[in-house]
């Protein structure tokens, strides 16, 4: 046995050296943080993720902080998480998560949120043919899949030809109008962009007609209007109307217009009243209501505009930095009946306030703070924490 001492020593060295490092050595490398609840219900803050960097001696570490705790990007990443991260932005969408739960097989291989439509009876998915999707290959081909919610039967129409070579299409929206599937495309052709709606028969997949949306705007203005669709947060649009922001000119001459387009009539209407007002605005469209928040470092003002009745409640709620007890309100996000405010406190600490969208009431307030029990003093840790971004990540459990 003594003869084998070298081999045994080698084995012991390997196991103890590597084992000690990974189970003892790497401990307590980076401090832990979390969003501490200062006021309100912690559940309201569950979806908030603040991100930024923690400054070490010579390098900084990218991290995310939430109510649950902190995750350092480099510490958590490995081959497995890299693979599982694929298309995470798609899987993080709440409605996609629901669809995945309900129809896992149908959802295989789909990755465009804008290509979905769902109501009680049917799920529609529109996609550009996989062989030409990532190329500028000629003859973009459309694929339509119709899933019957009850029977779970799927009808597919493949290779529906769209247009000429050199044209690049992107699917922005899908809407059902009775027995028709309307698909809004953004088409790039000859260095110009067009918004087009192609209409297909739900049963046969045949192309019924096309509607040129952007030309309606261009004709009326006598010049090219840059149309940008306003995002609607839900998959099924009850009143078949979508909204665009149009702009002409740039710099000093830039003019902004607001349009609504009805899938039912195919008509693009310019709205007399703007959808929102104010300089630094974030908005959230929930069915027919457009909620918008004007952001100022000292105050946030909430307003809502009803696109059907044209009723506007300007500044129905105001929240000041003082009221919240902070130095600055840096940003806001409107999402699912809530307004999330990104706060900067007196000593540069990042925090978040969650307001009820309907009345502006404060539901939650919390700040990023070190979790106690670490080696560096808490002050030093807080000093080294530099968060600068807010994101809302929802999951079905939240």
């Amino acid at each position: 046995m003594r003869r084998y001492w070298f081999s045994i020593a080698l084995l012991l060295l390997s196991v103890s050296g590597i084992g000690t490092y990974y189970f003892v050595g790497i401990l307590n490398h980076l401090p832990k943080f979390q969003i501490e609840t200062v006021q309100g219900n912690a559940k309201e803050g569950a979806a908030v993720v603040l991100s930024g960097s923690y400054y070490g001696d010579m390098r900084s570490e990218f991290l995310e902080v939430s109510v649950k705790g902190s995750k350092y990007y480099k510490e958590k990443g490995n081959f497995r998480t890299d693979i599982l991260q694929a298309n995470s932005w798609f899987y993080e969408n709440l409605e996609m998560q629901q669809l995945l739960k309900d129809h896992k097989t149908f959802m295989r291989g789909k990755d465009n949120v804008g290509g979905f439509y769902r109501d009680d009876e049917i799920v529609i998915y529109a996609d550009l043919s996989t062989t030409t999707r990532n190329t500028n290959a000629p003859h973009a081909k459309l694929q339509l899949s119709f899933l019957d919610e009850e029977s779970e039967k799927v009808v597919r129409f493949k290779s529906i030809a769209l247009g000429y070579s050199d044209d690049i299409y992107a699917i922005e929206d899908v809407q059902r109008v009775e027995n028709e599937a309307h698909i809004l495309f953004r088409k790039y052709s000859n260095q110009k962009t067009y918004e087009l709606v192609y209409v297909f028969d739900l049963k046969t997949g045949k192309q019924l007609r096309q509607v040129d949306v952007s030309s309606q705007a261009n004709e009326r203005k006598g010049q090219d209007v840059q149309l940008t669709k306003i995002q609607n947060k839900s998959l099924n649009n009850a009143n078949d109307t979508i909204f665009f922001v149009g702009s002409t000119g740039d710099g000093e001459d830039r003019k902004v217009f607001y349009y609504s387009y009805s899938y039912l009539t195919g008509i693009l209407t310019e709205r007399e009243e703007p959808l929102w007002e104010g300089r630094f605005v974030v908005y959230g469209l929930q069915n027919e209501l457009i909620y918008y928040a004007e952001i100022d470092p000292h105050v946030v003002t909430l307003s809502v505009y009803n696109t059907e009745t044209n009723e506007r409640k300007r500044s129905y709620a105001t929240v000041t930095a003082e009221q919240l007890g902070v130095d600055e309100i840096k940003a806001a996000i409107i999402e699912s009946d809530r307004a999330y405010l990104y706060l900067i406190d007196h000593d540069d600490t990042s925090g978040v306030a969650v307001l009820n969208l309907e009345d502006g009431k404060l539901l939650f307030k919390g700040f990023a703070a070190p979790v106690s029990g670490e080696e560096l003093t808490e002050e030093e840790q807080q000093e080294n924490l530099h968060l600068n971004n807010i994101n809302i990540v929802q999951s079905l459990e939240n």
Partner: protein
Amino acid sequence: MNRYLKLVHMEIHRFRWILIAMMGITAIFQFSGLIWTLKKAMAQFEEQKIQGSDTRKYFDSVPDTLTFEWAMSNTQMWFILPVLLCIAVLSLYVFFIWYRDWMGRHTFIYRLLMLPTARHNLFLAKITALLLFVLSIVAFQLVMLPVQELVLKLVVPAELRSESHIVDVININQALVELIPRQFEQFFYIYGLGTIAVLMLFTAILLERSYQRMGILYGILYLAGCVLVVAAPFLYFGLDSSIIPLYPMEIYVLVLLLFFVVAGVSVWLGSRLLAKKITV
């Protein structure tokens, strides 16, 4: 089992001097480089204090307190060169561990093939030994780091130094950060991948030894085949797959499975070649 272990020991025993030399060279380079850097840094620090900061500088700036992390950052080459040397030697030995038994006047392969033990033990003993060489050198490096930190504490007086975390020290070194990943799970993936690559190479080597000239071709084809099998989930089952698109979790599981399959097939094929097709 017993004979397998004895074979492992034999493989380790015949490589021991090279292993010790590699560790020795690594130690010498790294300790010398570290001490040299520290002394130069302290000297420059003294000069800065006396004459202000515009005298001839070796380092761009010397911080008020030296940390191991800073020292490592400025001694990179001395640390990395021996690591590269070890990698080169071990890579060559992947081939040499087999070919040395056929070379020269004393073809040891005769002896090995005539041992009263299943021939797959020869294969397994070599991979075990090689894996142990790699892991022991990595472990040696890990063990040396706290010792080097101790040296820093001996060389630099207390008021001029402050602590670093070992993970930061590793991260700032461009070679070590790749060889010693942050997570144990990633360590398992990287070194597992390396092991499977070596298994594939072993089988390719045995193909060459069994079929002479055609063997080299078979070996290359075998390697290409293995790579294709493992890459298949990404190439053929991704989001735009026309066969069946898989969800990320499914791809992960499939890839893991295929790696094990390739490893298993390599061991099986290599063992069969050793048992039935090998020729001296």
